[in-house]
């Protein structure tokens, strides 16, 4: 392994906390997934492994649950896969470690270059939307890494979903490198390369399978759990004045309705026969509210306020979290989401307000 810094890498750009541990500027060389280095006219380039270790998989699991999410980055710059030559293809990707791992495990047996843009640890599609996986950053990395001196051709292969941030025409005008947009999914890259850079319709289409949706639910649940803390703190305080204190059943109803919005709605998304996410969530929240109220015995004349209060609150909590899942979905337009919010927010806030008043009357005033 080379001791010298990677060419063009003038400052330390280590990810996460590794800077404080390793004072040299060659952090990438010490990453466990770096297996060696290859000498090029523009300096030494680290070779990366295409096999994921248990640490990589545990890291992926952790960020899905929101643990250490903000530090899950790798250094931007140029990497080598296999034994790339001057005529080997150049793939471009983002410096989110989850993205990087998803990509490199699909590159086994290939010889290619990997140009990683600094997207601040955000995946390609999201970063393209923000502009960090963008034309300027790509041009900057091409110049910084000296790519023009390393490869003999003038072609870059970008993930298709980077296209909302990168103007291929601009890139070729500014650097001479022509941009080809490859497939949406890393798993199709080998087929794309072996078919002479042709992507089928299927390879160009974004899906949103049950498994895709399931992978996104942990972070929704964690977010909802964080937001629930102040709500429960408020209930705890209210209990000091309550005629009928809030009990475990309130907690369970709340938990259930949050899970309806953050877990059940995403999973059942295409099977709930309305289009707006909030109404999908509202329906499941309504069902949960009915079921839980039956279980806790609110179907009585004495508990009528609680019955309606809990049903309304369940609906609004579930609808709210379901509506937030528009951001994780792959098929909602901003114009559509804006329209949905204009229609759904009055219902959500209205149901929450009326439900809240009913529960205050029932619990605090004992009506």
């Amino acid at each position, binding site marked *: 392994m080379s001791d010298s810094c990677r060419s063009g890498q003038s400052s330390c750009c280590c990810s996460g906390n590794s800077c404080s541990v390793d004072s040299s500027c060659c952090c990438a060389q010490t990453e466990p997934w770096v297996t060696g280095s290859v000498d090029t006219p523009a300096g030494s380039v680290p070779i990366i492994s295409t096999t994921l270790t248990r640490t990589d998989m545990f890291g992926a699991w952790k*960020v*899905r649950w*929101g643990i250490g*999410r*903000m530090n899950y980055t790798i250094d931007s710059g140029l990497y080598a896969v296999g034994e790339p030559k001057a005529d080997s293809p150049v793939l471009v990707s983002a410096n989110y470690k*989850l993205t990087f791992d998803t990509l490199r495990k699909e590159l086994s047996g290939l010889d290619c270059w990997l140009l990683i843009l600094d997207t601040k640890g*955000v*995946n390609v*599609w*999201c970063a*393209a*939307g*923000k502009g960090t996986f963008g034309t300027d950053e790509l041009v900057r990395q091409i110049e910084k890494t000296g790519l023009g001196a390393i490869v003999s051709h003038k072609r870059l292969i970008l993930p*298709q*979903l980077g*296209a*909302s*941030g*990168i*103007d*291929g*025409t601009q890139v070729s005008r500014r650097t001479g490198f022509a941009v080809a*947009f490859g497939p*949406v999914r890393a798993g199709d890259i080998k087929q794309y390369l072996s078919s002479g850079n042709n*992507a089928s*319709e299927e390879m*160009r*289409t*974004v899906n*949103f399978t049950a498994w895709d949706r399931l992978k*996104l639910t*942990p*972070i929704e649940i*964690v*977010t909802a759990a964080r937001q629930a803390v102040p709500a429960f703190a408020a209930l705890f305080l209210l209990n000091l004045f309550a005629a009928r204190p809030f009990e475990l059943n309130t907690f369970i109803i709340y938990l259930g309705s949050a899970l309806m919005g953050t877990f059940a709605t995403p999973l059942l*998304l*295409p*099977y709930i026969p309305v*289009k*707006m*996410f909030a109404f999908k969530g509202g329906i499941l929240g309504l069902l949960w509210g009915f079921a839980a109220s039956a279980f806790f015995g609110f179907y009585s004349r004495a508990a009528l306020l609680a019955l309606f209060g809990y049903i309304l609150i369940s609906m609004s909590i579930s609808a709210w979290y379901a*509506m*937030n899942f*528009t*951001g*994780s*979905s*792959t*098929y*909602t*337009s*901003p*114009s*559509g*989401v*804006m*329209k*949905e*919010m204009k229609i759904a927010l009055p219902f959500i806030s209205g149901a929450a307000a009326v439900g809240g008043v009913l529960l205050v009357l029932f619990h605090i005033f004992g009506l």
Partner: protein
Amino acid sequence: MVHQYLEDVVTLEMDAKKCVGCGRCIDVCPHRVLTVMDGKANIVNKNRCIECGACALNCPVGALSVDAGVGCASAIVKSWFTGGEPSCDCGGGDCC
């Protein structure tokens, strides 16, 4: 199972006079909204458009226009409080 979102809301527009039929928009569209017919791009699946802006950005002659952005409710809510454009800035997992 095909996902369907709200209809008749999308801002995607196409100026057929400018189009040179290069097909770049068809390559980059993640929902197969466009197709080339008789040497020109055509919007054939407008309701499936998510307004990501990839086609308009990569059109070499500016034939496509769309009010691009992120289809994310929490980003829109956040933009109401902070001012400015809604952006994918949730910091959570894959936010979009």
